[in-house]
């Protein structure tokens, strides 16, 4: 299979070609650019699967393809040159992610045929070009072999997100949301870029893998007890790790950078499904997984990741409870679910985190596309209170949406249950020894209840009960291009959990944890980038309650119980023919939650209440003091010249007299000086 990898660049290149074609010729193409997009993503999917098979057969690929630039730079650990390059790293993790991304991208392109093309939308070439560019950047990010390349494509997906959120630029809200999304993530990327620069300046390399990687260099530096930039090596690794984490928090919409994601729902729903649920938002978490070896060196950084993750999971889930817009609910659930992944990675559950990343990509893309289908059915109405009763009128949408909802809520045996349970299990065994992690675990656990509640509140309000508007009574039909992606993703949401049935494996003592083996490099792997290698670096102690089996049962039982009770409460409150809102029961807490804990307000205040006035003050200072000084110099000289110029009388005789007087004065002066008198 050696030859397979020489075709790897094509995976990203196909969508790039689609981007160019859609942008340049989309106007004249039959489906306005959809066909090249679908063809390109299908080709990427096939090639990605080929890579997966190649990795399964024991091969990996790590090759520098193009040197961006190189030069001399003395680094802290002694290397005196550095090369910045573009290269590919295909190992079990990236091969898996390639398949996920290209699959979702392919399905979203197909779905777009039904969602975007059918509505007489203008600007479709721009839309498909954006999708193509996004898919290209995302795929290139996934198999980047160094941190700089990862950063570059990380930024480019941010650009695509900006362009696609702002797709309906003639409205007021979409450009504003796009700006906010880019700015908030940029703020995170600011820290990320400092991190990249710092790591490059410290270790003289940005490679993820191999002996020349910064991970290996950091490990050596810690072992040697080196001092880096005035800090001891471990502290410096923590600092740089946390700087990079800034970008992760921004892109994966973690607290406190989560505020952009709900606003990003202004974009087309297909974009929300692809970018703001399944792939781009995953980029942050994926990056943590990609350089997990680096974080494993720093217990502090990991604990912070875990805690932020657990907190975000709960925080966002509570906000999802009170939203009325179906996409808003999904947006907050996305934030919450990425919190789980962070929690999983933070407690050292590398496999669990990646597992949930994969499952979430499928079921959340499914839910968003389902929501897109609902929006088509409802003639572009997104308020859940105007829906109801769609169950019988759109069975395919209903059943697939239900599969996604069950997975999201974590109901056995849907995929979400297995991965979420594994994360919580990994968290509790560490939490038994580390109080911070235990707190994170507790928050994650409580969030399960809220997840069950808001998920089923959404399902009941949308599909059950009686139709509550004209649109809901007479839904717009949906075509095959909408149903096909839903069915594919619905099946995946149901069965993807089979990839890693860890609790079953532990209880029945059978070897069915395929994903763990996959990530542990039992097929192909690059040395140092395996679950086992990370495990050796981790400093976590683990404990159990009773025996391991008992712990597994307790963890799974607790989360299932909470999920069911959340779902049950939703069933009790909202599964009525004419459901009513129960918000007033929450009292003032409800107001706080509905206003998103005033997170938007304080960030807007930071921008408009602090930065902008500061800028105005600076401008006033500039206009009055600095420019005033400059103008002052000019007025002073103008003023003095208005006096001096009076010598020029315009009368020739006066000039002559002055000349004579000057000459005499000169003579006298010279005479006195020369001693004539």
């Amino acid at each position, binding site marked *: 299979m050696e030859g397979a990898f020489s075709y790897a660049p094509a995976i990203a290149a196909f969508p790039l070609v689609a981007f160019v074609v859609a942008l340049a010729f989309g106007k004249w193409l039959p489906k306005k650019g959809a066909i090249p997009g679908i063809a390109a993503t299908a080709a990427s999917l096939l090639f990605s699967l080929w890579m997966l098979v190649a990795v399964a057969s024991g091969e990996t690929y790590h090759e520098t393809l193009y*040197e*961006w*630039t190189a*030069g*001399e*730079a*003395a*680094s*802290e650990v002694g290397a005196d040159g550095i090369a910045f390059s573009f290269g590919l790293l295909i190992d079990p993790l990236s091969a898996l992610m390639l398949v996920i991304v290209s699959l979702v991208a392919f399905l979203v392109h197909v779905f777009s045929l039904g969602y975007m093309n059918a509505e007489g939308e203008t600007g479709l070439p721009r839309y498909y070009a954006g999708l193509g560019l996004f898919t290209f950047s995302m795929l290139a990010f996934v198999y980047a072999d160094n941190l*700089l390349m990862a*950063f*570059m*494509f990380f*930024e*480019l997906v941010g*650009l695509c997100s*900006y362009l696609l959120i*702002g797709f309906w*630029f*003639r*409205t*007021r809200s*979409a*450009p*504003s949301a*796009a*700006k906010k999304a*880019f*700015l908030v993530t*940029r*703020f995170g*990327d*600011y820290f990320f*870029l*400092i991190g990249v*620069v*710092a790591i*490059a*300046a410290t270790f003289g390399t940005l490679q993820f893998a191999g002996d020349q990687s910064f991970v290996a260099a950091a490990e050596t530096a810690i072992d040697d007890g080196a001092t880096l*930039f005035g800090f001891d090596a471990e502290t410096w690794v923590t600092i740089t790790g946390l700087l990079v984490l800034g970008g992760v928090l921004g892109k994966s919409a973690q607290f406190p950078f989560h505020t952009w994601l709900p606003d990003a729902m202004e974009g087309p729903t297909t974009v929300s499904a692809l970018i703001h649920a399944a792939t781009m938002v995953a980029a942050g978490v994926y990056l943590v997984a990609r350089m997990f070896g680096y974080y494993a060196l720093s217990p502090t950084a990991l604990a912070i990741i875990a805690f932020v993750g657990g907190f975000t999971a709960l925080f966002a889930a509570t906000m999802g409870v009170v939203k009325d817009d179906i996409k808003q609910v999904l947006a907050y659930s996305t934030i919450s679910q990425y919190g789980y992944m962070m929690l999983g990675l933070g407690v050292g559950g590398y496999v669990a985190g990646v597992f949930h990343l994969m499952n979430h990509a499928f079921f959340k893309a499914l839910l968003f596309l389902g929501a897109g289908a609902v929006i088509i059915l409802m003639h572009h109405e997104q308020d859940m209170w105007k829906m109801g009763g769609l169950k019988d009128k759109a069975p395919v949408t209903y059943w697939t949406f239900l599969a996604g909802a069950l997975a999201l809520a974590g109901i056995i045996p849907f995929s979400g249950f297995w991965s979420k349970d594994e994360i919580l299990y990994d968290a509790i065994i560490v939490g038994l020894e580390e109080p911070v992690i235990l707190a994170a675990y507790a928050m994650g656990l409580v969030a399960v209840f809220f997840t069950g509640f808001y998920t089923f509140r959404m399902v009941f309000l949308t599909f059950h009960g009686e139709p509550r508007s004209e649109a809901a009574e007479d839904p717009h039909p949906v075509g095959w291009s909408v149903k096909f992606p839903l069915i594919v993703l619905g099946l995946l949401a149901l069965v993807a959990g089979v990839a890693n049935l860890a609790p079953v494996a532990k209880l029945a003592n059978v070897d069915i944890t395929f994903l763990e083996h996959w990530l542990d490099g039992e097929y192909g792997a690059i040395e140092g980038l395996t679950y086992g290698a990370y495990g050796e670096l981790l400093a976590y102690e683990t404990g159990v309650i009773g025996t391991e089996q008992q712990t597994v049962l307790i963890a799974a039982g607790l989360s299932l119980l909470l999920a069911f009770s959340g779902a049950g409460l939703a069933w009790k409150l909202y599964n009525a023919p004419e459901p009513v809102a129960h918000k007033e029961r929450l009292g003032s807490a409800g107001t706080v939650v509905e206003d998103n804990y005033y997170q938007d307000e304080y960030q807007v205040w930071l*921008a408009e209440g602090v*930065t*902008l006035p*500061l*800028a*105005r003050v*600076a*401008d006033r200072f*500039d206009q009055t003091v*600095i*420019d005033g000084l*400059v103008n002052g110099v*000019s007025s002073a000289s103008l003023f003095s010249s208005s006096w001096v110029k009076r010598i020029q009388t315009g009368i020739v005789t006066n000039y002559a007299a002055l000349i004579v007087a000057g000459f005499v004065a000169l003579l006298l002066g010279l005479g006195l000086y020369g001693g004539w008198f």
Partner: protein
Amino acid sequence: MMIEALIAVALVGALVTFVAPNRVAGKLAFAISLVPVALSLWLFTAFDGSGNALLDGTLAFESHYEWIQLGEYTISWFVGLDGISLPLVVLTTILTSLAIMSSWTPIDERESQFYGLVLFIEASLIGVFAALDFFLWFIFWEAVLIPMYLLIGIWGGPRRKYAAIKFFVYTNVASLLMFGAFIALVFGLGDAVTSFALPEVTDAMLNGGPEGFFGLEGTTLASVVFVALFIGFAVKVPVVPFHTWLPDAHVEAPTPASVLLAGVLLKMGTYALLRFNFTMFPDQVEAYAVPIAAIAVISVIYGAMLALAQTDLKRIVAYSSVSSMGYVILGLIAYTQFGVGGATFQMVSHGLISGLMFMAVGVIYNATHTRLVTDMSGIADRMPVAVGILVAGAFGYMGLPLMSGFAAEYFIFFGAFGADFAYAPLFTGLAMFGIVLVAGYLLFALQRTVFGPYRLETDYEVSRAPLHDLAPMFVLLGLIIALGVAPDLIFEMITDAVDPILEGGDL
């Protein structure tokens, strides 16, 4: 003789354009300006120099003739190119050509004089970047000012006289300071130099330094001259607090003059800083590293804050130039290969990107006759392609990867982070906050002007921009992306010329 040919073509072209009828002047000037473009591109491919022009490097296209004997000193016609000046010469020729094309729409009076002056600026700018004798260099340096003064003063906006005089006087006073300082330095060097040739002065500075002059000790003299030169060039760059002429000049200047002003004229300042301060005074660079780094950081942040407070699109771009030039200073003071190389790269990159931004703003102004953010919204509805390019340019300005701005900023940040002076990582981290602010003010401006529902306060019908307005922007965008994807197109020759400077610092 190639450099002479380059300058001569532009000069003769300027004269021919002056006497050409207004009707054909634009097309004629554009056709003429293509010759220097072709010549400079040929120079670029045929470049065979290596090392730094001032430090015993092998000069490309060198020519050296004695010109005037002034007492003990010889003034010569001495020109040549190295890896630092060549990219800037190419930038100049390309940008002039594109600026000429972009003025076909907005310039509708006294065209022949306008285009003649533009070509005259081009000739002088090439001279600035190619001259290696101080006197020759100074003549070209000053010769740039006059046509630019006229361009702003005749074809400018409502406050053009104020802006033009401010620009001229401010930069001229700075020139005087710089000129006096350099002459003092040459006299201070005594018998070690017999000409004003920059390589000779550099050599004398690095091997011994000045003996003293006008009652000052050698080292004190060197410090005084360093500071005076720095201030003299800082006005041109411009560095805070010497920047206030820039927004006025930009706002009043016609689009093509803005393009040249931001694209090339500002680079004269940083180029001179690199050639004089950072090549001849390694000890002073080390001694003044922290204050200069602080000035750089202040320029970046303060410039960005000022841009944030503006409502005139051109003012926004003008202040953002102050911010971007701050990065150049940061890169220079880092005194590492990536720092100084990145600073030079940023000169070229910022020339392309700010040129693009001014052109895009100009195209929108041609259609709307307003530049105020508050006067319009939703322009994208009527001018999709022009706005598309404006957005692309804005993202270039923000340092989007795979565009030249990112490469330049990344090199500078990386070079500065590992620099030797105290608190280098801290200064770098602070300066990097500029990338957030730049995104803030540009996206804010874009959101309000080009997106949203269509609205225009002025009585003009906005329609798609003509192709000859768009074509130069496409060329620039192509160059920006090319340099972003393959920075080694010029970065290799830049570092080759930068390395000797850094080694000179170890003497």
